[in-house]
């Protein structure tokens, strides 16, 4: 039951977006998010759609994969819509429901906040779909490494994330094994109320934790035997290099941000 898990949502393909330097991708995502937040009116979202469509097209990802990322968001979306529709206030009533008034401002706000949320998630999904978790970690480490001056443990964090990624499948496999062993001796993980089911997990979690700690001890010893002594003086197998395609991506994003900022000046109407 625990197999067939994919870690993160990386979708391996050969595309320009996949090949971009992870550091650049992370920074571009931050720029894009800023862009989504400063979009001044609804018309501005056309620019966001265009930008995202271009990125999606270049990444060769099937569009439905991106949309799938929105599914867990649906309740928050509905909630945001309702809150904004009825509690924004404003001067131009469109519909009076007795207990609340639907205003033009409310309607605009509901659409704006929902679009913001949707585009935030779509953009982030694009990053995680096109970047392998380890590459992402690598990029983060290098982006954060200037903070080492302030004693921020960038290397240690990246190392922990890599090890976690390495051991999640191993521990899942082990959990599966323990579960089967317990089931064979009559343990029941599937029926009962929530509380009973949670209680049934205890005999699973205890051995799992014990073994995880043991593995941690073993791994630390093995890492030490292989000369691991922290991030200092360490070289890397992969050299990250900002290439021409990265500069083009940066340029496109810069144009996008500029257009978003300037948009009210060349669009006559305001929504």
């Amino acid at each position: 039951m625990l197999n067939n898990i994919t870690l993160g949502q990386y979708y391996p393909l050969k595309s320009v977006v996949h090949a971009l330097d992870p550091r650049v991708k992370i920074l571009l995502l931050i720029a894009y998010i800023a862009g989504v937040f400063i979009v001044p009116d609804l018309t501005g979202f056309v620019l966001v759609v265009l930008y995202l469509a271009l990125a999606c097209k270049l990444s060769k990802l099937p569009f439905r994969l991106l949309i799938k990322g929105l599914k867990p968001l649906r309740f928050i979306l509905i909630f945001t819509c309702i809150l904004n529709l009825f509690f924004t206030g404003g001067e131009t009533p469109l519909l009076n429901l007795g207990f609340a008034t639907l205003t033009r401002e409310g309607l605009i706000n509901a659409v704006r906040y929902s679009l913001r949320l949707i585009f935030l998630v779509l953009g982030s999904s694009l990053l995680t779909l096109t970047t392998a978790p380890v590459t992402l970690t690598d990029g983060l480490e290098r982006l954060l490494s200037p903070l080492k001056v302030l004693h921020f443990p960038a290397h240690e964090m990246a190392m922990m994330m890599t090890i976690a990624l390495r051991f999640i499948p191993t521990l899942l496999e082990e959990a599966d094994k323990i579960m089967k062993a317990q089931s064979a001796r009559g343990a029941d993980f599937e029926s009962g109320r929530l509380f009973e089911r949670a209680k049934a997990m205890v005999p699973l979690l205890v051995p799992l934790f014990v073994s995880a700690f043991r593995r941690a001890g073993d791994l630390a010893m093995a890492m030490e035997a292989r000369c691991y002594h922290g991030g200092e003086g360490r070289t890397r197998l992969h050299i990250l290099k900002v290439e021409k395609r990265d500069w083009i991506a940066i340029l496109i994003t810069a144009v996008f941000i500029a257009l978003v900022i300037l948009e009210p000046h060349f669009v006559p109407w305001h929504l």
Partner: protein
Amino acid sequence: MSDEIIVLKDVCYKYEESSHNAVDHVSMTVRRGEMTAVLGRNGSGKSTLVKLINGLILPDSGTVLTDGMDTQDDEHVWDIRQRAGMVFQNPDNQLVATVVREDVAFGLENTGVPSTDMPERIDAALKAVNMTDFAERAPHLLSGGQKQRVAIAGILAMRPDIMLFDEATAMLDPRGRKEVFETVRQLNREGMTVVWITHFMEEAAQCETVHIMHDGGLVLSGTPQEVFSDRERLQNWRLDVPPMAALAQHLRAAGVGLPEGILSIDDMTREVEALAAHL
């Protein structure tokens, strides 16, 4: 370059929570290029012994010289660990990265090897253990024997002189065990000094020198022929002789004229054929 690559002189080591020495006044030497087995039942101190060799633990008394360097000397810690690589028992708990290639690179990254030199060394190491085709795989999808071979490649890439194996085949199925042992034998033939900790007599029988540990002490050292000649003595330390040696002993007791020193199936067939030729 002295011929004696590992020298232990009257070494003692005690774990903090324990009341007696895990390694008790042990002196031994390993010659360059030799394949040495250390045998002993659980808790005899054999794992502790190898950890002393690459400085994972430091002796309470006595000295350990690895490739001429004292493990007590802080300056040499990383040098020693680079030259004396170690492969552990559990194949899952010693691989760090999510891709085989990157795991092999781990030791190189730690020792500050320039990025440009890495691919060549990684490829050579993977080739030596016959895992080239698996370079881009995820370690958790490999078999136990394959994982151990990746671990060996990770050490090989660091270009060590000595490889220490702490029961590296104990958790493998017979096929994986053979796979790993043959890989190590090949490395030894190419000049690698190997210390092979095991509780499998058949494996020890194929090494050049066998040391037997019991209750922290080194109780017997010699060639496999010498060590396995006396079954009763071995049983004192709760060890058995290799199956073929036991069979030869039974046959001798029954009056079959087999010589001493039969350890493997090959030895046995050779001697039986020789006997048959005389009939």
